[in-house]
């Protein structure tokens, strides 16, 4: 059972964070709120997202799973205006969810949760370097790099106390060093890993709206991005596997 209303912008923010990686997901509901955990088709990126009941204007739910077509949901938000409320309603074991927004009442067929990949277990990894940066700064740096290349190295220089991003294209090169002053905080540790900008571009767009993003880095290790959504009543973690080049 689910009966909830939520500000359209807040729900959109959550759905956008998921759609950056996957077209459909399994949403868990319980007393405290909703959450999802998923890995993209290529097993390269993972997302963990939670939205506490405080993020909703009203919220009542029993423990349950819903198969959500994320792309379809995104289209529905096209109907919402600023300050609109979205109401979600679903009976126990129902195949359909009612979604009302801006006078439109949808009945959305849910996906069979058996057809959605089972929730991945996040790997246990130790990432010693930690950066806290403004989401907008991070996104701008990623966007700049995407012009030059399809991959980017993220690293920490403990000596200079800097966080850097370097991208190497076929003919061009770009580097951005963030000094400690430009960051919210830095926990220096030797770190450098290479990532596909294909994924980072989409993640960056979502993270640009976050006041602060925590980045955890290691050497040739995955990167973890951790940030709040819904004014602190929701949280997203992205995990992205590195590229490791032989040369």
């Amino acid at each position, binding site marked *: 059972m689910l009966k909830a209303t939520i500000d359209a912008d807040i729900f959109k923010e959550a759905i956008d964070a998921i759609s950056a990686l996957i077209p459909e997901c399994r949403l868990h509901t319980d007393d405290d709120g909703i959450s999802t955990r998923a*890995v993209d*088709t290529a*097993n390269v990126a993972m997302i963990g997202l939670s939205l506490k009941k405080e993020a909703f204007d009203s919220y009542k739910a029993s423990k349950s799973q819903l198969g959500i077509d994320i792309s379809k949901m995104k289209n529905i938000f096209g109907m919402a205006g600023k300050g609109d409320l979205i109401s979600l309603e679903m009976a126990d074991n129902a195949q359909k969810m009612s979604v009302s927004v801006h006078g439109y009442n949808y009945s959305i067929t849910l996906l069979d949760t058996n057809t959605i990949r089972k929730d991945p277990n996040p*790997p246990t990894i130790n990432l010693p370097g930690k950066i806290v940066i403004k989401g907008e700064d991070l996104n701008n740096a990623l966007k700049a790099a995407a012009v030059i290349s*399809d991959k980017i190295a993220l690293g920490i220089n403990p000596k200079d106390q800097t966080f850097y991003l370097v991208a190497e294209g076929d003919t061009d090169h770009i580097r951005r060093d963030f000094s400690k002053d430009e960051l919210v905080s830095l926990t220096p540790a030797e770190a450098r890993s290479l990532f596909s900008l294909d994924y980072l571009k989409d993640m960056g767009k979502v993270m640009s709206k976050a006041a602060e993003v925590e980045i955890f880095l290691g050497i040739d290790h995955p990167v973890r991005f951790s940030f709040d959504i819904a004014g602190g009543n929701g949280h997203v973690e992205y*995990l992205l596997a590195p*590229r490791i*080049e032989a040369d």
Partner: protein
Amino acid sequence: MLFMDFSRCCERLEGTSGRLDMIDIIAAELPGLTGEELPVFVRFIMGRIFADWSSRKLGIGPNLLYEAAGAVAGISKEKVIEKINSTGDVGQAVEELLSVKSQMTFFHEELDLVHVYTSLIEIAEMEGKKSQREKLLAVRRLLGNAHPLEGRYLARILLEELRIGVGEGSVREAVAKAFGVDSALVEHAQQALNDMGEVARLAKVGPDALRDVQITPFHPVRMMLAQQGSIADMIAEHGEIAAEFKYDGSRFQFHKKGNWARLYSRRLEDVTGALPDVIRQLLDATDHDVILDGEVIAIKDGKPMPFQSVLRRFRRRHDVAEAQEAIAMVPNVFDILWLDGETLIDLPLSERRRRLEAVVTQYVAPQVTSGDPAIITQTYEDALAAGHEGIMIKVPASPYSPGQRGKNWIKIKPEVDTLDLAVIGAEWGEGKRAHVFGSFLVACQDAGRLVPLSRVATGFSDEQLAEVYELLKETVLKTSGKEVTFEPSLVFEVGYAELQASSNYEGGFALRFPRFIRLRDDKDISDIETIGSIRERYKRQANSAQAYQH
């Protein structure tokens, strides 16, 4: 069976040249497979995904595969294409990319043979505007979980070009050997079912299961084919023979059960939608449930039109109604394979003909039976006079052998030497033909391999060059300078004056005065001339040359 085990088997087969050794390798794998795995294994090993009778298509083009491979390997599609150009083989390129793939993943799932097959069914069923994106994701998932060796064969299967030299004959022998059944029985079941996968499954059940197979309506069987020969030889060998006009149209197979009817082309594609007039005519011609074999010809002002106009209708998907007005399509039915639930292919032609005449009231092609060469020759003259291609002569006692080009059907037509050859490469044209391909490299086949035979640069109209360019431009595998290499897909009918022994081409022959006759888009790459038949022609040509000299 893990897809890895299947891949290892492919690798062993690829490294084996002897046919008997190949049969042994396949036969050793079959008994260990489950009923679910067996059909998949058998089709995959022949480079096919779905049953031969099925018109189901995967719908994955080379570009989609390159994009997926790039995403998995962590490089751009352009780099993937560079790699394919440098290796000259998609499978090998994907294998190398996966072996140095730089993108790490969080999980790895071992690919299972049946799971790969069910994924391919899902891919084939994806439709609609988002289907290309969905297909891409599905292929990424498959390749993402593939080991390099699996990638080699997966990529080739996805493009339906496995090319490890395993032909249907080898698989037939392997099935017979693995399950201790007679290979003639396997062949017979394959002719009726047109799905070696299902035949293998039945062979595992036992010989009775193979013996009991029936043709299934709407599962088209292969067309019986004809050889070249002479009236005199046929009469000398068989006495009375049956002669029919050889129509210059398009072969069809008509399936009807109740009011439901479909029409299949020579390549067993469903062409029902393009020829509603023919369907109507045939539905009106019989009340029975039937499978009929025939040839549809185009008639304008009472005269047969060239083959091209029929083909145009076969290909047509739009504006069918408009096209119907311009040219009348007339079916000519000459055989019946199935009648009211009974499979007739093992009956003699004379008996099939009797039943055909009894149940089909119109459009049955006239037949003359005689042991007199003068009467048959007169039929031949009549056929030519009426604007047809020549005649077919058939042995009245012979069964219908799907897919066989045997001695029971002989085609007699004026001597024009042409070969059906695959287009494997081209050179860019010059001058006003600078934006299309100008000269084409064509090949025959040798045990599943394509062997270059000649270049063809003449005989094309500008329209034909433009059409051929449109058809080929998406299939370019490799470009170096002016030379391009294609993923073989088109068949040209090529005319020539003489076959010459030559070391210029790998096949050992060259064509003298090769010229383009027409596009055979009713034919598949597997239908092209074999090197064996070209050697035969060369021998015949040498004999007749001697005859002139003496």
